[in-house]
């Protein structure tokens, strides 16, 4: 997790000790953000930063993904911050994050402007209904897959079902629901772990 030491012995390998420029980092993440369709930003990051550019190695990338797992935020965003930190410290993390977000931000505002002009046309409304249905399907798919990921026990499934009941079905505000369910879920996971 620590940044590459800048003062490596001159006799050692000459691999990538030249720090990567902030402009280069910004452009790399700008390009990534603007072209990563479909939500799986972490996968795009892996292909571009690890495989194509070789800025960080495989093991570092995997540990970066693992660290973020229990913390809030999109995986791609968390990985971007930690990769940027790995490359150039705090300023690298900031530049990478803003690079990642600024492309999609500009694009979505253009889309929004087009929507303001055309959004009330009946045909556009019909197409958007279809797109929304598919996008909802994508959300359901991800939720169901992660609910059943890694052979969950009865307790984990009950917690997931309780969350759906409170937030999805009953429409309760999310913050108190999480504040009540998260401690219960974590304690039960701890008890389950002790027992096994």
């Amino acid at each position, binding site marked *: 997790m620590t940044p590459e030491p800048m003062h490596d012995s001159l006799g050692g390998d000459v691999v990538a000790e030249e720090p990567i420029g902030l402009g280069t980092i910004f452009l790399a993440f700008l390009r990534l953000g603007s072209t990563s369709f479909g939500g799986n930003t972490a996968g795009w990051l892996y292909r571009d930063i690890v495989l194509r550019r070789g800025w960080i190695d495989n093991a570092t990338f995997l540990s970066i993904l693992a660290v973020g797992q229990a913390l809030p935020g999109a995986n791609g965003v968390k990985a971007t911050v930690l990769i940027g930190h790995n490359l150039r410290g705090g300023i690298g993390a900031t530049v990478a994050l803003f690079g990642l977000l600024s492309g999609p*931000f500009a694009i979505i505002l253009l889309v929004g402007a087009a929507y303001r002009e055309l959004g009330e046309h009946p045909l556009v409304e019909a197409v958007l209904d279809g797109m929304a249905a*598919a996008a909802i399907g994508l959300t359901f798919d991800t939720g169901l897959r992660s609910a059943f990921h890694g052979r969950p026990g009865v307790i984990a499934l009950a917690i997931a079902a309780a969350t759906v009941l409170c937030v999805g079905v009953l429409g309760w505000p999310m913050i108190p629901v999480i504040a009540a369910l998260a401690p219960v879920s974590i304690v039960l996971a701890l008890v389950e772990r002790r027992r096994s």
Partner: protein
Amino acid sequence: MRGSFEANLVALALVFVPLSFLSFGGSNAVLADIAHQTVTVHHWMSGREFADFFALSRAAPGPGSMLAALIGWKVAGLSGALVATIGLYVPSAFLVYGLARVWQRWRGRAWHDAVERGVAPIAAGLLVSAGIAILRASPGGLSIWVAAIAATAILLRWPKLPPLALIAGCGALFGVIGALHP
């Protein structure tokens, strides 16, 4: 309901900053609350607009969705878009930045593992809740429910299907049906 420009910016920040810290598994996890706050509590937009914004943001590139930018833009123009986007993405990024090294050091401890395993089912439940919340906000009626469930079944059966292809295909299908039966 119509506050001043500054009041709207503050209200946007108050909606998105707390949710940033709860976006386990990504910003889609907090969609149910975003829908509730923007449509029901603040009356910033209709349910149809919210569902449309959601569809557009999922079809556009970017991490998770840029839905926050669209909502902020609708409420308070470019400043609103900036406040909402920064509010949703930056606080959790700070948290990850600050906690990553400490969190890594605690790897392997019993409670570390319990936190990871305890949070996972809640994150999964929030995603399913997000889908339900958008279905309820959308005025599209039965056809959207049927199509959303069919799309879910298709994705569970064919996981490698590109998301954009499904969104485009489903949009085209609804477009053709809409043109034939206006």
